[in-house]
Structures are given as structure tokens and as C-alpha cells.
């Protein structure tokens, strides 16, 4: 046992995130006032002592590269190891320019990287899970249980099973069945975080490559359930997987709940992100700002309620912002009125403009738009 190596899948594209994921992978979609989605699993790994992390990327990754840089914010800018961004350098597939069909194909495209992993165990994680998971506990559990693969899943009743992988656990937490999109089953939602040994991972990647099997769920979790001991690790804490705009909106708004913030941002397991070095946020006597999360560098002269303001947002006098998510450097002009709006970065809302979305169907405004 010499520790865990991290592999993060950051190549996906969720059509459901619409405007937010138009020019970036879900991994770099802004979340929670100052974070990107990938910050959570990446920080979870670092906080568990993981010192080498590979991030598998495939197209649309400009924004992600800009965000993670050399990995110094996560203390992963290291002489040996540290953060490695992995474009598909060993891609053997010849059809089209589409992204990977599944995780096994993504892993096989970086097979030579995997072969050089110096740790005995590997944690595989998706990049769009909002969680603060003590991974060292999952790792300890994996080692003591003797499982081949440990799969982290949400506690019963947490998380919708629609469009998700779910596990039916038997006695001792062993996985009896792996299902997909099984809305009505008694399973637990997979949080798509797995621990297995490096040797097994390499063996599985090679085997799937030869057979042209690309799906981890189908080819490994389901088809190999007879020969692999797969165990579920039930995470009782907070977790959110964000794949649609309404999930994005609901999960963001949940952050206004102090209990959820405490669960996601405990003092001993910080979530790291790229620092922007903006000044403090100023609240003007003419404004009012309640039940809201406000990042640094904002100027609030209007009214803000139940909202999340990212760094550098300005709300001018007389403007009213309710139930909104305004990303970095968005400005709201004088007397404008917004409710249930998600504005991406650098959006300009001109003076007097009114935009009203619905709680169930918020308005999303693309990056750099002027309205």
C-alpha cells in the first residue's frame, strides 16, 4: 500500500446544461460563487493525501486548462507527479472526431500514462460531482474489505435514479446488481467515484481495449460482476451530481442553506480553487443584500435576495435581483429587475431591463451576452 492515484474524467458534455456548457466541459462550469465543478473532487483527492492526479480531457477544454493551470492552487504543481492533463494522446479509435464513448475508452486512450502510475491504487472520479468526501476513509474501507472495486454511492433516498447508475447492495455492502436509469428500483445512486488497484485497472483497460468495450458500467460493473468483488461505500453526507440546468439551479440554491454549506465547506477539508485576487465586496447604504452568497470584488448598490453572486459582480442602484445566479463580472444596470436568472460570465444587463424566469425553468444567459 503506497497511496492513491487520482484519475478524473473531464471530457464529458452534458447537453442538459445548455448555455453553461456551450464553451466549456462540465468540469469547468462555475459553481457556488467562486468554484468550478472539478474543484470538489480534485480537492477531495488532495485532502486525502493524493499527490498525483491525471485529468482526462477531450476537446472544449480551453476553460478547464485556464482554470487548473499547473495545479498550484491544489498544491499539485510538483517536481515529480502532481497534476497531469491528459488529452487523448494514445487514441486508437479512428472513427470521427466525437468524444469518448465511455470511461474504458477514455482510459485506454491514456494507457501509457496509467502504466506509469507509481501508486498501488487508483481512484476514478467524474468531474461534475459536488461533494466533500473524506476519500481516505473510502480507501481504508476498500483495503480492509478485500473488494476488487469499491463504488461510492449516495445513501438511500438521496438523489434521483433517473439517468443515473444505481447499485443494489446485498449483505455486507456487496453489489448484487448494477442498473441504469432504473427509476423505481431499490438501488442506491452511484456517485461515480471508484477505487481499485492499479494492476486490476490496467488489466481491465487492456481487456476492454481488445474487445472494443468502452463502457465501465456495462463492460466492467455489469458484465464482470461474476468474477469481480464489487462493494458499495455508502456516503451519508451531501452529494450532488449536476447534469441539467434545473439540477444546476436547484443545487446552487441549496447552498443558501447553512447546513449544506457546513457539509460542503468544513474547515479541515477546504475546497481549493483558482484565486483571482480581487478586493473585498462593498455593500452600499442604498442597497440591501439578504440570504445570499457573495464572493469577493462585488459592488452591491441595489437589492439582492436569495441569490449567488460570483466574483466581481456589480448590481447598480435601484436594481432588484431575486433568486438569481450571477457569474463572474456580470453587471446589472440601474433599475434592472431579474428573477430566476442564471447569467454566465461577463453578462451585461442594461439599465431598466427586466428578465423573469421560473423557479422550475430559470432563464440562462450565455457568456458575454448584453441584454
Amino acid at each position: 500500500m503506497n497511496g492513491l492515484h487520482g484519475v478524473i474524467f473531464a471530457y464529458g458534455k452534458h447537453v442538459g446544461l445548455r448555455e453553461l456548457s456551450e464553451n466549456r466541459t462540465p468540469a469547468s462550469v462555475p459553481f457556488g460563487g467562486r468554484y468550478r465543478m472539478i474543484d470538489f473532487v480534485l480537492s477531495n483527492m488532495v485532502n486525502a493525501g493524493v499527490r498525483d492526479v491525471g485529468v482526462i480531457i477531450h476537446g472544449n477544454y480551453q476553460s478547464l486548462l485556464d482554470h487548473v493551470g499547473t495545479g498550484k492552487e491544489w498544491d499539485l504543481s510538483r517536481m515529480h507527479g502532481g497534476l497531469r492533463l491528459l488529452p487523448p494522446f494514445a487514441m486508437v479509435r479512428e472513427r470521427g472526431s466525437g468524444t469518448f464513448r465511455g470511461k474504458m475508452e477514455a482510459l485506454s486512450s491514456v494507457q501509457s500514462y496509467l502504466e506509469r502510475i507509481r501508486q498501488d491504487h487508483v481512484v476514478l472520479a467524474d468531474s461534475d460531482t459536488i461533494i466533500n468526501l473524506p476519500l481516505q476513509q473510502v480507501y481504508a474501507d476498500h483495503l480492509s474489505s478485500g473488494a476488487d472495486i469499491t463504488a461510492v454511492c449516495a445513501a438511500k433516498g438521496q438523489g434521483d435514479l433517473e439517468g443515473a447508475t444505481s447499485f443494489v447492495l446485498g449483505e455486507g455492502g456487496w453489489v448484487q446488481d448494477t442498473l441504469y436509469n432504473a427509476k423505481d428500483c431499490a438501488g442506491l445512486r452511484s456517485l461515480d467515484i471508484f477505487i481499485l488497484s492499479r494492476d486490476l485497472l490496467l488489466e481491465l483497460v487492456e481487456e476492454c481495449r481488445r474487445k472494443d468495450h468502452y463502457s465501465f458500467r456495462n463492460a466492467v460493473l455489469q458484465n464482470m460482476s461474476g468474477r469481480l468483488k464489487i462493494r458499495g461505500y455508502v456516503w451519508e453526507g451531501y452529494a450532488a451530481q449536476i447534469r441539467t440546468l434545473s439540477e444546476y439551479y436547484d443545487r446552487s440554491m441549496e447552498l443558501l442553506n447553512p447546513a449544506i454549506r457546513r457539509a460542503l465547506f468544513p474547515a479541515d477539508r477546504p475546497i481549493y480553487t483558482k484565486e483571482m485576487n480581487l478586493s473585498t465586496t462593498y455593500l452600499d447604504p442604498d442597497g440591501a443584500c439578504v440570504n445570499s452568497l457573495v464572493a469577493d470584488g462585488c459592488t452591491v448598490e441595489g437589492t439582492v435576495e436569495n441569490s449567488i453572486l460570483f466574483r466581481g459582480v456589480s448590481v447598480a442602484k435601484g436594481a432588484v435581483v431575486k433568486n438569481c445566479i450571477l457569474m463572474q463580472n456580470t453587471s446589472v444596470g440601474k433599475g434592472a429587475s431579474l428573477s430566476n436568472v442564471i447569467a454566465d460570465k461577463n453578462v451585461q444587463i442594461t439599465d431598466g431591463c427586466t428578465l423573469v424566469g421560473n423557479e422550475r425553468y430559470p432563464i440562462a444567459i450565455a457568456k458575454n451576452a448584453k441584454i
Partner: protein
Amino acid sequence: MKKECIAMLLAGGQGSRLYVLTRNVAKPAVPYGGKYRIIDFPLSNCTNAGIDTVGVLTQYKPLELNSYIGSGQPWDLDRANGGVHILPPYMVEGEKGSWYKGTANAIYQNMGFVDLYDPEYVVILSGDHIYKMNYMKMVAAHKAAGAACTISVIEVPWTEASRFGIMSVDEENNIVAFEEKPKEPKSNLASMGIYVFTWKKLRQYLIDDEADPKSSNDFGKNIIPTMLAAGEKMLAYRFEGYWKDVGTLESLWDANMDMLSRSDLDLLDDSWPVYARIPNQPPAFLGKNARVEHSVVTQGCDVEGSVFNSVLSDSVVVEEGARVSYSVLMPGAVVERGATVEYAILGEGVRVGAGARVGASPMDYDPDRWGIAVLGPSTVIAAGEVVAPKTMLDSNHEEVSR
């Protein structure tokens, strides 16, 4: 490796007029403006001006300052060639080595460090002021005039001139006279304590000054008057803009209040960012009943009460029903339910118990007995306790007189 210009930042002073706030940290490490420390200003000015080699001379309680500066990464001063260097006093072979006797002696003891870079010019800075300044413009003026020493000066009100080192200049801004805190000032140009020296010149003056047993080895008291008397070309560089000394409790409080207006000191200007080492905290949360007016908040703040005209640093908590006004709350300060904090400075990690009262408005108070209330780092005020204005308590809850 030769550099045209390097900076030496004098950060070893105790800052005794900040009393409890500098009991365990050097003055440059004192928090300011919600997310800065005083030293962020000279360090950011260096990096923005293009000076990539900075020696930080430390002596008094340097631990927090050292760990804050670290590799210099937040200021982009983690360089392969140059970068930020912490320079404490050190032992010398054969001799004893000694503490820094004065500002000039501190540079004298580190001549070897300066010589490593063989610079033409050395900028001497201190960690006492809040301001944004392009030191390379000053170096350019120094170069153009062919000066041996250039001192940056600012016009101060005549009534206050006797508190400063005052320069008299001719029409070309050549310094003709220098007086330290004159009773009857002949000019209102005050030295800002920022010097540019031609290194070859300064090097010799430092050696001569060290050889003089009567010298107190200080720039203002010895080096500058000696150079002036020797007829060296001394230039005054006029600075216009915001510049504030934060050496006293009142001026530190004042400078914090100044940043609220944003007009005097624009910290949002991205052409001259002020960098800081920033802890990882979620965005500030303003609760359902929060009322925050003419104040600044930052990451990690959690406000459920009322805050007026105040500066809140990271991880500050203002609980429901608590009221904070005209105050500076340093990182991690907690004001519990129903407590009132007015005209006060709360050091890092202070806890004000429920219903307690710290400080008061000057309006309700005898002006002779009124002043800013100051709680040193980690002071705990019990529920319901009253701390009168002008009172200063240390972390053991013992009163300290000014």
C-alpha cells in the same frame, strides 16, 4: 545575476504604537482592509512596477510574516532568478554578528545580498503605509536627473508638517534642506520613507556610516543628512495619490474607514492589483435578517446581524441581533448574538460574547475619555461584559494603557 534595480523592504520594526496588535507579529503582517496585510502594498507595488527582486529585512517577531510571505507566489515573486528573500540578521565569522541597529545598518548588514544582483539602483521601502505607487517611475526620474538619492515626498497640510521629515526643495525639486519633525516647518513636503539610491553611492555611505560610532545608523537621521551635507544630488520625487501611515491605532482605523469610500484608494483597479495570500473560504453569506451598509465583507464572512461602516475580514461572524458599526474586524473575529461593537478594532480571533458591548460612539461620550476600543488577537469578552471606549485589552483580558 545582474539586475538594474532591486528593492529592500524594512520589515523588522515592532510597530510599538500598535500595542496589542503587534505584540506577536511584526507591523507589516498586521491585517488591513478585510483581506490584506500591510506588506501586501509594497510587495504588490514592486511586482506591478516590474521589480522582481525584493529583500525583506525582518527582525521583530518574524514568524507570521515569514509564513505569510512564503515563496512569494501570491505576489508573483517566486522567481527562478530573483524573487522575494527573507533577510534576518545573521552571524558573521570571527565576529559576533548583531541585531539590526538601525534602518541603514540593516542594509549595511545585507550588502552581500545586494551585491549578488550588482544593481545600479536600490529602492528602500518600509512596511508602514497603505498606497499604490509605481517605483520604477521614481527610478526613471532618479536616472534622468542623475541623482545619488531620490526621496519620494507628498504634500501634507501645513498644520501637520511638524510630524514628518520635511524636505525643502528648489524649483527643480532638488532637495536643499531636510529636517526631521521640525517645530517650524519651512515646507510641507513630507518624506514618505521611500528612497531610491544609486547603489555604488549608497554602499560607500553605508560603510562610512558604520565606521562612525556616534551614528545611530538610520536613513533619516544619518545617511540622508550626511549625503546632503556632502553636496550629493538629492532629488525629491513628488507623489500624488492616496498615502496613509498606519503606524498608530487611530491611523490604522482611519485607513480602514478610507477604503470604504473606494474613491481615495481604488482596490478594484485591475491595472494595479494589490495581491494578498488568501485563505480558502467559501463566499460571504449574508443571512435573512442581515443588514450591511457602507461596509466591506469578504470570503468566509457569515453575517446575520447588522453591520454599518465597517470592514469585515475573512471568517468573521456577526450573529443575529448583533450590531457592528464604525469598526474593523480582523480575520476570525466573532460577535455573538445581541452584542454591540462600535468604534473598535477587533484583532484576529477575538470573540465578543452575547449581549456584550465594546466601544461607543463619540456622540454619546465625553471627548476626553473617548477613543477607539481595541481588543488584541484572541481576546474573549464574556457575555454581557462592557468594554468602554478607548480601552485596550490584550489576549489575557488585561488592560493595556496607551
